[in-house]
C-alpha cells in the first residue's frame, strides 16, 4: 500500500519534470518555429553581410518565407555567398532582390526579399545577384564626418 502511494507521487514528479522540459522547448525555445516544410535552396552574393548569421530569417512583407542556411566567402569574386532555404510553398519571381535589414536599431539582422516583375520564378540552385549590402554604422559615421570636414574646409574658401 505504502509502495503504491509512493508510485503515484513519483509519477507526478516525473510528469511535472517532463512538462517543465516541454515548456522550455515549446514556449521558451524555438521548437515551434522549426519547420519541416519542403524547401528549395537558392544562393545570393553580397558585398558585405554585416552581422548576418546562419539561421536568420528571410522575410517578405514581414512574413518569414525562408531561412539562411550557410554563409561563406567566395575568393574568386571577393564576395560573401549566402545559401538560403526558401519554403516550397512560396514562389518568387526570378528577378527578386535581397537586402539585409535590421530588426530595430540594435536588433538581429535578417534578409528582406523584394519580389521582381519577371514571369519566371526562382528555381532550386538559382543565384540572386541583385542584393543590397548591410548598412555598416561605422561607414555611415565616417562618411558623415568626412562630409562635415569637407564643408568646413569649403566654407572659408567661399568667403
Amino acid at each position, binding site marked *: 500500500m505504502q509502495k503504491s502511494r509512493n508510485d503515484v507521487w513519483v509519477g507526478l514528479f516525473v510528469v511535472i519534470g517532463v512538462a517543465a522540459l516541454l515548456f522550455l522547448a515549446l514556449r*521558451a525555445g524555438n521548437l515551434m518555429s522549426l519547420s519541416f516544410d519542403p524547401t528549395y535552396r537558392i544562393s545570393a552574393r553580397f558585398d558585405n553581410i554585416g552581422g548576418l548569421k546562419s539561421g536568420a530569417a528571410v522575410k517578405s512583407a514581414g512574413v518569414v518565407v525562408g531561412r539562411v542556411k550557410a554563409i561563406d566567402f567566395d575568393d574568386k569574386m571577393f564576395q560573401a555567398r549566402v545559401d538560403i532555404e526558401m519554403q516550397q510553398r512560396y514562389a518568387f519571381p526570378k528577378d527578386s532582390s535581397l537586402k539585409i535589414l535590421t530588426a530595430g536599431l540594435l536588433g538581429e539582422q535578417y534578409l528582406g526579399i523584394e519580389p521582381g516583375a519577371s514571369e519566371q520564378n526562382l528555381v532550386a540552385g538559382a543565384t540572386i545577384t541583385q542584393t543590397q549590402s548591410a548598412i555598416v554604422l561605422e561607414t555611415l559615421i565616417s562618411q558623415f564626418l568626412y562630409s562635415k570636414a569637407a564643408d568646413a574646409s569649403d566654407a572659408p574658401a567661399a568667403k
Partner: protein
Amino acid sequence: MSGPVDLLARLGASVRAGLADIGDAARLLLRLLALVPAALARFRLVADQIHFLGNHSLAIIGVSGLFVGFVLGLQGYYTLQRYGSGDALGLLVALSLVRELGPVVAALLFAGRAGTALTAEIGLMKSGEQLAAMEMMAVDPVRRVLAPRFVGGLIAMPLLAAVFSAVGIIGGWVVGVLLIGVDAGAFWSQMQGGVDVFKDVGNGVVKSILFGLTVTFVALRQGHACRPTPEGVARATTRTVVMASLAVLGLDFVLTALMFSI
C-alpha cells in the same frame, strides 16, 4: 635529528593517502556506472529514491526558482532599460536560466537538500554496521544501497533543473509583464527568437545530468567512506556540501567553456 626527514615522510604519506583516496573514489564511480542497468532492472528501489530525492526537493526548487525569476526580471529590466531594450527581458531571463542558473542553482540546492540526506543516511548505516551486516549476508551494499540512490539522483536532477528553469521563466514573466509592463508579445517572441532548443535547452539538460551525477556521487562517496562515528558522519555531511558545491561550480565553468564558446 629527524626534522627534515620526518617532514619528507609525512609529505609522502599524505600524497600516498590522497592518491589511494582518489583511486578508491574512481573505482566506486566506475562500479556505480556499471551497476546502472542492474539498478534500473529493479526499478522499485529506484522509484523510492526518486520519491525521496526528487519529490521532497520539489518545494524548495520551485520556490527558489520563482524568486530567482523575480530577481532576474527586476534586475534584468533595470539594466536593459538603460539601453532602451527592455523588450529583450524575456530573452535575458530565459537564456540565463536555461543555460546557467537553472542547472547550477538547482544542483547547489540539490546538494544541500538531498546530498546531505544521502550522506547522513549511508554514514549512519555504516556506523550502525548495517552495511557490514549486509556483506555478511552476501548482499552487496554497493549494489543494493548505493546504486539505486545513484540512479535516482541521475533521474531526479535534470527534472528538478527543468522545473527550476520553467518556474523561473514564469517568475520573470510575472515581474516583467504583470508588474513592470513589458509587452507580453515581445517578451515571448524575443525569447523564442533567441533560445535554441538543442544548443541552449539541450545543453542545459546535459549540464544538469552531469551535475546530478557529480552531486549524487560525492554524497554517496562521502557517506560510504566516512568514519563510522557520530563525528565522522557529521564531518562527511559537511564535506558533501562543500565538495559538491565546488565541484558543480568548477564543472560548470568547464562545461560552459566547452559548450558555448565559439
